[in-house]
């Protein structure tokens, strides 16, 4: 298993009803190398929280995250983890510092790399931008000069800078229109086939999950209620909530 979560629980204090919100409740998932797992669920079901816990940005109340079969412990292990596991954040508009040029954004991704020469860095930047279909001459521009879709691709390029083995995509395409969505999805799929990238695709869109993933986990109110191969989930959904989700996703009466 490349990454595995075991019985993760995370609660937040909620100011609204003076109680506790169980954002992630007893979640155990695992992803094999070169496999893609789709994490689906409605808004507020704890997907982002789980991703942040996997990224070691938020510490869980209980439970463990294993990377390559080991708990990430100590500074050295964390450095390796940070180089090998990268995340694309939900909001392309706030995931890039408005004061950073694209070059600074991409260079920042390399903080943990060993010393690289300038030409190596330049070449790596051009390669990563190229792999998401962006020209190499945008390095001196600022994020606000780009559209949402372009920004999202810049974020993906940034995540690819260190050659990660696991990429977490948190709603990487949700904020984009359908056409751009298709392009970005295609880009990601190509990357996966070329480099053997492992993906954790977080989305509330079942179609996106179906087009990219081999396995699907459905979350509701912090719990995983369905966790199986794509075919099984789509053909024979066990939980009524999953059926509801699918009905919503593939029901065209509302859309047309």
């Amino acid at each position, binding site marked *: 298993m490349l990454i595995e979560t075991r019985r993760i629980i995370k609660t937040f204090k909620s100011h609204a009803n003076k109680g506790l919100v169980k954002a992630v409740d007893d979640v155990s998932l695992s992803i094999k190398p070169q496999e893609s797992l789709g994490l689906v669920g409605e808004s507020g079901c704890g997907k982002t929280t789980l991703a942040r816990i996997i*990224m070691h940005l938020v510490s869980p109340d209980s439970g463990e995250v294993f990377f390559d079969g080991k708990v990430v412990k100590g500074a050295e292990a964390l450095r390796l983890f940070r180089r090998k596991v990268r995340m694309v*954040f939900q909001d392309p*508009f706030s995931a890039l*510092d*408005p*004061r950073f040029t694209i070059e600074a954004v991409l260079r920042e991704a390399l903080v943990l790399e060993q010393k690289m020469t300038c030409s190596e860095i330049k070449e790596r930047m051009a390669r990563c931008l190229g792999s998401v279909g962006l020209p190499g001459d945008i390095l001196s521009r600022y994020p606000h000069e780009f559209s949402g879709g372009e920004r999202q691709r810049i974020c993906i390029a*940034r995540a690819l800078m260190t050659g990660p083995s696991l990429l977490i995509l948190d709603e990487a395409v949700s904020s984009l229109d359908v056409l751009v969505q298709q392009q970005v999805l295609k880009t990601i799929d190509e990357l996966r086939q070329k480099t053997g990238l492992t993906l954790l695709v977080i989305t509330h869109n079942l179609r996106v999950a179906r087009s990219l993933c081999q396995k699907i986990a459905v979350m509701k109110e912090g719990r995983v209620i369905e966790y199986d191969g794509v075919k099984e989930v789509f053909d024979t959904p066990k939980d009524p909530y999953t059926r509801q989700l699918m009905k919503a996703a593939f029901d065209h009466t509302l859309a047309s």
Partner: protein
Amino acid sequence: MRSMWQSFKENRRAVVCLWVLGALCVSAAFADFLTPYSFKDEARAFSYCPPTVVHIMHEGKLSRPFVYGQRMEFDTYHRRIYIEDKSARSFIKFFQSRLFTVEAPGRIYLLGADGRGRDIFSRILYGARVSLSIGLIGVTISFAIGLLVGGIAGYFGGRMDNVLMRLCEMVMMVPGFYLLLALRAAVPDSFNSLQVYASIIVILSFIGWAGLARVIRGMCLSLREREYVLAAKSMGVSDMRIIMTHILPHTVSYSLAALMLSIPGYILSESALSLIGLGIQDPYASWGNMLSESMNIVRLTFSPWILWPVFFIFITVMCFNVIGDALRDAVDPSMDQGGSR
């Protein structure tokens, strides 16, 4: 940053003030050249001599600029008055190691003389060095501390935040001027002028950082929730580096305005301290200690020109305030409130 500067430039008043301050700073820097006398050049015979008139007409004929000699007399109330002595002329010499001087035995007092016959104009320019530099250096130090403490408290939150903010409150709780006096009292008597100067800067910075730290902390609390901060963290960027590159730069437009608005406080505190004799010591000049002579009301009525430093303090404080206000208005919200959508 560029658009902030541009909208600042549209504020004509602020630009004028910037020029005035620039001129003042340059004059202070070149005081050695621009003044006719050194700050400690005494002439007891000219005690409280009024501003000298520069003449260019002598007995109906045009002449090089010159000043008449001054004859001291006593009026009916036994007050010292100076009368121009038309028989003694002293010509003004230009560009002789100083911009202008006057031939001996005449003396030139553009803004009048103080009790020991020292030139007030010269002392104001030399004093500007002290007063302005204390303001600028003091504010720089306390802003460095304020930004760092506020940044750390806001970014890390939790216990760190708690401890640092209680510290801030302790500093802010004591009224500024009394804290100033108390800290000044702790400075040993044996210090020479330079050490006193340095210790005043340290004291003023110590008092000034807390207010800024609190505001910066508030801004950082919201800035750290931005996804680019999380992204940087997820890529292994160190906390200190995140604070320096992703957090504090976003407070820069606010802090620049706050910086300008707080400089007057430093200048006024130094003046107040020097006025009551606890700051810069005679013979060194500062705008504050030049005013200590004017605490005598009789003196003030007879020789009102010893109030000239007040004018300079006023101009300086006003300029910094106008510039600070203009900067605050010019702050570009799209850069700091989460980027443009």
